[in-house]
């Protein structure tokens, strides 16, 4: 039964392929405003695939994804506006500076950088070409784009990979502020995230 009154994200009987392999089926969950869901499970259990499906990037083989009670994936451009997705890759152009990288995503959203640089402590690195950054710094740059968006649904794939403890603490502040605004966080991870109370969904 589809409950038309659910606020937030509701998934019913999802199934998806990766390549030729069915990675998950009959997957159902719901996350309300301010909620957080952590996807757990061994490597290859379909966490990244599920996140891509939720973002509207991957193909859903079966089931239905509801946003505030209506089918979320009917209009992909509409869905894209409510999603912020941070995948495995950092989507950082090595030839551009830190500020230019972030500025591009700000322009795509039609706004300025504001204080997004300071959200994860990148102010000092602003004019540095991104190719000079370490893996952890690149990750911080990718996560900084979360401070630009007001998309209610954050989909994060191993967000803290390579981050030091100070950066994880700043990231925790970002997550808490997002959830306080009524935002939803769905994250795939193998390590504990700075999230407070979370629901867990085990895959595989």
């Amino acid at each position, binding site marked *: 039964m589809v409950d038309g009154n659910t606020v937030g994200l509701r998934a019913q009987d999802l199934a998806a392929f990766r390549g030729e392999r069915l990675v998950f089926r009959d997957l159902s969950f719901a996350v309300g405003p301010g909620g957080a869901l952590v996807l757990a499970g061994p490597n290859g259990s379909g966490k990244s695939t599920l996140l*891509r499906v939720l*973002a*509207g*990037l*991957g*193909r859903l083989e079966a089931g239905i994804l509801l946003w505030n009670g209506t089918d979320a994936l009917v209009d992909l*451009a509409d869905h*894209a*506006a409510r*999603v*912020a*997705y941070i*995948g*495995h*890759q*950092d*989507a*950082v*152009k090595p*030839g*551009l500076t830190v500020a*230019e990288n972030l500025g*591009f*995503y700000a*322009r*795509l*959203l*039609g706004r300025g950088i504001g204080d997004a640089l300071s959200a994860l402590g990148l102010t000092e690195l602003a004019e540095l070409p991104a190719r000079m950054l370490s893996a952890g710094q690149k990750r911080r740059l990718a996560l900084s*784009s979360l401070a630009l968006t007001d998309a209610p649904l954050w989909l994060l794939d191993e967000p803290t990979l390579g981050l030091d403890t100070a950066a994880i603490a700043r990231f925790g502040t970002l997550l808490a502020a997002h959830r306080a605004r009524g935002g939803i966080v769905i994250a795939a991870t193998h390590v504990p995230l700075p999230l407070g109370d979370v629901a867990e969904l085990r895959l595989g």
Partner: protein
Amino acid sequence: MKGCLAILARELRLSLRHGADTLGALLFFVLAASLFPLAIGPAPETLGRLAPGIVWVCALLAALLPLDRLFGADLEDGSLDQLLLSGLPAFAIAGTKGLAHWLVTGLPLLLAAAPLAVMLRMPEDAIPALLAGLLPGTLLLSLLGTTGAAIVLGARRGGVLLPLLVLPLTTPVLIFGVAAADAASGGLSARPHLLLLAAMLAGALPLCPLAAGAALRGAAE
């Protein structure tokens, strides 16, 4: 629209930063065309007769060179996912990328074609027809090339597949482009050939970005 401008600005900035890659196609064009006088001899009659074909074939091959990286870099570093989630329709992303390819590769080829044609002893009155054909021609090459690049995206050995896919599609462009210049050097009107090129452009302008956009979505899956 704003989003498209942001993508275009970033593409142009990246091309400036990677100047060697950007100039590569242009230098290939000039060098490849310069080989012909060495290979077939500098006799003006022979060379001038072949010049339109040489310029066109070299421009075609040079335009193919940067296509491999047009979407490849974005797919590898995850930028493509972010572009698809920017709220812009996929065809607008593909169209903007195609425009960036033309500005960075097609337009310099067009500008270099005139001196190259002079070097190849092309009859002077045929050069305007050659350039008038190359203007829609290079735009068509960018559009078809963008579509091809989007379709082979994510495929193994995509770099080999790409010319095999794009070159057959560009044959009508080549035929009418060279025919326009040949007609002008023979004292005939180049107009029908140019109109046919413009008609092809009018068809490709909406269709190629749509096909490329669909292919981009497929590649992201």
